[in-house]
């Protein structure tokens, strides 16, 4: 058991921290209030390779590991939850499935520009009638000659209109499983600009307001036959595998939000004076900080352990990391909500004002308990592994 970070990881953390403080933090409040996608930040993320961290160099990436990627999302989220999720959705939900399940041609065509950040990625699974229950899929894909024809829509898609490449799931038929007729789901790669692929309204959200969350609409959208990702009918497995990895990214985002709120609050309680002394001098404050710091550290260990487990999978192609990822996400998300809420409380009235970062962090934290599998879904995943 070695909990110390390598030199590489220490340096990478410092890099992400400097970048976040200098490039991301100054925009955090503005993009939140204006509900504006931070394109300028994405360009910088691309320039420095932050959009291809766990991708091999041969595929245009940085050749680093999942832990480094998780640390990147953590540090970005410490100052801006929006920026954290942009990187997470791109890397975990779009680059990762193409890298894992794509053909060599697909990897060259899509992973290389995505990892270099020349293109941004998104992932479309959720539909109005298919959230937690992916079997509720309505979007259909029908093979017509050399093309798949897509019809249907996807909702709550992070990076929506801003993404150039989307991994989309659709029903391609029906199969009998254990005597029941089940939908056969397949995964596809769809490029922005394909005729028949349009965007619905942009969602007006509680938090992560700078991220572009859109409805994706497919109306007789024809894509080449070669854009089927993985084997036909393997879409559900691809989606589940992808979400296992995505949960590490979201867990890292939640961890970052909690850690960032805690750091901000520690500085605040040292400065803020009430009854003639700093509020950090009160035992109530001290004990709350102690509890929060302990939970943040516990969340960090779970997140890093899950990242390490996925690194092992990247090496051997078989190690499991789904339960680790579920635990990390469940715990980190709940810690994020609890810590940001308490941090608002410690800020008093100021915590409720938009000029104070903890107000935004608390709103941003809530989504981490919901997307890429609600906390309830994580409990299902974890308990299923216990009772199998």
């Amino acid at each position, binding site marked *: 058991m070695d909990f110390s970070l*390598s*030199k*590489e990881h220490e*340096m990478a953390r410092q*890099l992400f921290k400097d970048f976040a403080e200098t490039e991301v933090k100054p925009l955090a409040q503005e993009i939140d209030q204006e509900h504006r996608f931070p394109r300028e930040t994405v360009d910088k993320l691309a320039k*420095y390779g*932050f959009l291809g961290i766990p991708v091999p*160099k041969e595929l245009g990436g940085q050749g680093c590991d999942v832990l480094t990627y998780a640390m990147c999302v953590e540090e970005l989220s410490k100052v801006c939850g929006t920026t954290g999720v942009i990187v997470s959705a791109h890397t975990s939900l779009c680059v990762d499935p193409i890298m894992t399940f794509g053909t060599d041609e697909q990897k060259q065509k899509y992973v290389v520009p995505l990892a270099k950040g020349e293109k941004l990625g998104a992932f479309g699974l959720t539909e109005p009638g298919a959230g937690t229950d992916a079997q509720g899929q309505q979007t259909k894909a029908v093979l017509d000659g050399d093309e798949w024809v897509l019809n249907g829509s996807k909702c709550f898609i992070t990076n929506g209109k801003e993404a150039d490449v989307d991994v989309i799931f659709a029903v391609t038929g029906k199969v009998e499983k254990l005597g029941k007729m089940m939908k056969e789901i397949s995964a596809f790669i769809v490029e922005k600009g394909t005729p028949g692929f349009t965007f619905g309204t942009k969602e007006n959200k509680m938090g992560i307001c700078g991220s572009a969350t859109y409805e994706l609409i497919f109306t007789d959208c024809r894509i080449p036959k070669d854009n089927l990702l993985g084997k036909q009918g393997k879409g559900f497995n691809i989606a589940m595998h992808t979400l296992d990895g995505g949960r590490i990214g979201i867990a890292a985002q939640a961890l970052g939000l909690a850690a960032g709120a805690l750091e901000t609050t520690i500085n605040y309680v040292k400065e803020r004076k009430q009854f003639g002394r700093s509020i950090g001098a009160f035992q109530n404050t001290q004990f709350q900080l102690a509890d929060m710091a302990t939970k943040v550290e516990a969340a960090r260990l779970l997140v890093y352990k899950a990242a390490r487990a996925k690194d092992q999978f990247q090496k051997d192609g078989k190690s499991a990391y789904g339960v680790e990822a579920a635990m990390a996400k469940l715990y980190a998300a709940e810690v994020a909500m609890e810590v940001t809420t308490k941090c608002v409380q410690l800020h008093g009235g100021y915590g409720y004002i938009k000029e104070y970062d903890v107000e935004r962090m608390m709103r941003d934290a809530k989504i981490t308990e919901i997307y890429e599998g609600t906390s309830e879904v994580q409990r299902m995943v974890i308990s299923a592994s216990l009772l199998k």
Partner: protein
Amino acid sequence: MKVVVCIKQVPDTKGGVKFNPDGTLDRGAMLAIMNPDDKAGLEAALRLKDQYGAEVTVITMGLPKASDVLREALAMGADKAVLVTDRVLGGADTWATSTTLAGALRNLEYDLIITGRQAIDGDTAQVGPQIAEHLGIPVISYAQEIKVDGDKVTVKRQYDDRYHMVEVKMPCLITALSELNDPRYMTPGGIFDACQAEITTWGRADLKDVEDGNLGLNGSPTKIAKASDKVRKGAGEKFVPDTPEDAVNIIVGKLKEKHVI
């Protein structure tokens, strides 16, 4: 084209300052960063690499821990790194530092040497020009812009109230201002490579044409007589007036009392 950039690991002055009992700085007790002017110099060199394929070598003198800034430079894109470290080099002032670095630079091929104008710990701005003097090459300090054309460099040299466009034939030494550019970040992949990269380490024996008497504490003509935290002027009177009128009355009263008005 070969460019050598001299960089220094410095304590981050934001983190507070600590001393050894002998009055020298206790660098180990402070956070360490790459000196900002040096980083601008490195960025200038890396741009020459981007433009002309220049080979960029970074060199530093310090404790073994100073290899951290070399790895940072490699992660930003430098090609080679040299650490000059030896017990006998400790406690050097700018003279002894510049003789040491000149001794190391004599082992390297260079067309251009870039140093930062000054380090944020000492703020002396001396080591760059002194290295040039020891090597017998021209120095252009306070560079705001650097352009290379064949075997010549053109530098925008800043003065208090003007600048000179100066042209010189390489080899030469330029000291960079942090205003020169915005240094790039490292890349994550660059960090992973840098941590595996080999760093050349030189000691006293590797320095060329340098006498022992010009090295380290003993080879330093300047000696610290006293070093201390700065004692600040104490706070005067502070007023929290209820109205702007009260505030103005206080100020005008004081100005009259002191015969300013």
